[in-house]
């Protein structure tokens, strides 16, 4: 039996090689994929989030942890799918039209994945229509919009309005985030929630799909 405590440790320390190796060994020893996610990966990412909130961790450490978590998930995910386990939720995520910055978006996408969500990442500079198509065809229940620049923030509103026009606004919950975005802005444009940080985004996503 592999020492499973090494898995959360590797995620927290950002060591993807160890994370992948322990995951492989655990699967070979008969640990269920679901247990790997719920008992080891989710608590590890929660600890990473806690360290971020306490300012022990900044973006570089978060990225390393997210990468380690991803290395483990890549082994576990196909097995989870085979057992027919449903994800916590399906999220379409992207940086809005006109904005090419995807650092924050990538971080949130990784964290959501670590939180058990199925993530459909559309990349950066995503037009409203692409968000709508992806949400409809992939049966997403969440849409996450990112913007880094103040000048591209209005594209968030355009995207939310486009969901309204398409008659799909009631089908999805829409969350927004990014450096210049505030709670007040989120409310003003009719978003369902605002995540101050990548960890806050995961907590918010859980809340929105549960509601």
């Amino acid at each position, binding site marked *: 039996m592999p020492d499973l405590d090494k898995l959360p440790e590797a995620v927290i320390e950002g060591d993807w090689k160890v994370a992948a190796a322990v995951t492989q060994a655990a699967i070979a020893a008969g640990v269920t994929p679901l247990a790997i996610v719920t008992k080891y990966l989710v608590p590890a990412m929660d600890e990473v989030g806690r360290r971020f909130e306490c*300012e022990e961790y900044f973006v*570089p450490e978060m*990225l390393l942890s997210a990468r380690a978590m991803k290395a483990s998930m890549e082994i576990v995910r196909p097995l989870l799918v085979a057992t027919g386990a449903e994800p916590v939720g399906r999220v379409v995520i992207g940086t809005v039209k*006109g904005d090419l910055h995807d*650092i924050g978006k990538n971080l949130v996408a990784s964290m959501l994945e670590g939180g058990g969500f199925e993530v459909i990442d559309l990349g950066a500079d995503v037009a409203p229509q692409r968000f709508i198509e992806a949400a409809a065809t992939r049966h997403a229940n969440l849409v996450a919009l990112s913007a880094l620049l*103040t*000048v591209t923030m*209005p594209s968030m509103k355009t995207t939310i309005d486009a969901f309204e026009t398409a008659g799909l606004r009631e089908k999805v919950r829409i969350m927004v985030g990014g450096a210049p975005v*505030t709670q007040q*802005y989120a409310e003003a444009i009719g978003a369902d929630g605002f995540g101050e940080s990548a960890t806050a985004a995961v907590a918010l996503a859980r809340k929105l799909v549960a509601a």
Partner: protein
Amino acid sequence: MSRLHEWLEDGLLITDGAWGTQLQARGLAPGAAPDTWNLAHPERVEAVARAYVEAGSQVILTNTFRANAVAMEGGLEAINRAGVEISKRAAAGQSLVFASIGPTGKMLMAGEISHAQASAAFAAQAAALAMAGADALLVETMSDIEEARLAVAAARTTGLPVIVSFAFDSGKNKDRTMMGATPEAVAAAMVEAGADAVGANCGVGVEYVAPICRRLRAACGLPVWIKPNAGLPKMEGTAIRYDTSAEFFASHYAALREAGASFLGGCCGSTPDFIRALVTARCASS
């Protein structure tokens, strides 16, 4: 004496304010890259630059923040050249023109781009800006020390003075970059990289910046470049508003000069009125 020190001989220089929001006020669509207007609407870009010169900016920047090969594609050499030419026309010899180099928007440590790709993008932009006659190069809104190092190295090959400025907007006291770097770490690394001045721009607002300015100055002794936001954006109807007034912004003039600022202006949300208010504050304090 270096060119930078000659320029600073008579004391603090007042720089300019935001360009992106000013260009939007002149019809730039939200989400469109401002840099493309150097070729599409040079007269409107020049109007922004001239508004700052007329307001009293002793240093103006160029509309070239995103014009590197990682962040944008197509006609970059022409966009960068036109950006410098437009600002020089507006400056008409009255103001210095420092050419803006922004971040790539990709993360080196996550392997999104290689060091070689980032270096090549910065080198091409720096060369185009220098060739067009910029007085100095400004590497701005950085958050990753490693990326800034590459940009400064590329900028230095032009022989122009190089200023490097970071966005401190993270952590409880808003005194860390997004990547967690402190003013002390930034200052030490940028001295080592050979920068002629270091600074803080963008960020969360003028009221947070004096301690950062003081720490940068104490950590390296280089001239300090300060250009904070006009607060954080707020939504009013469909328009974005910044909550800091020109008067509130300029009320920090004395504190920032005392904290060691050598260059002072505004970032996102600031306008020519902010520059006029800084000029008034300087007259009042001398």
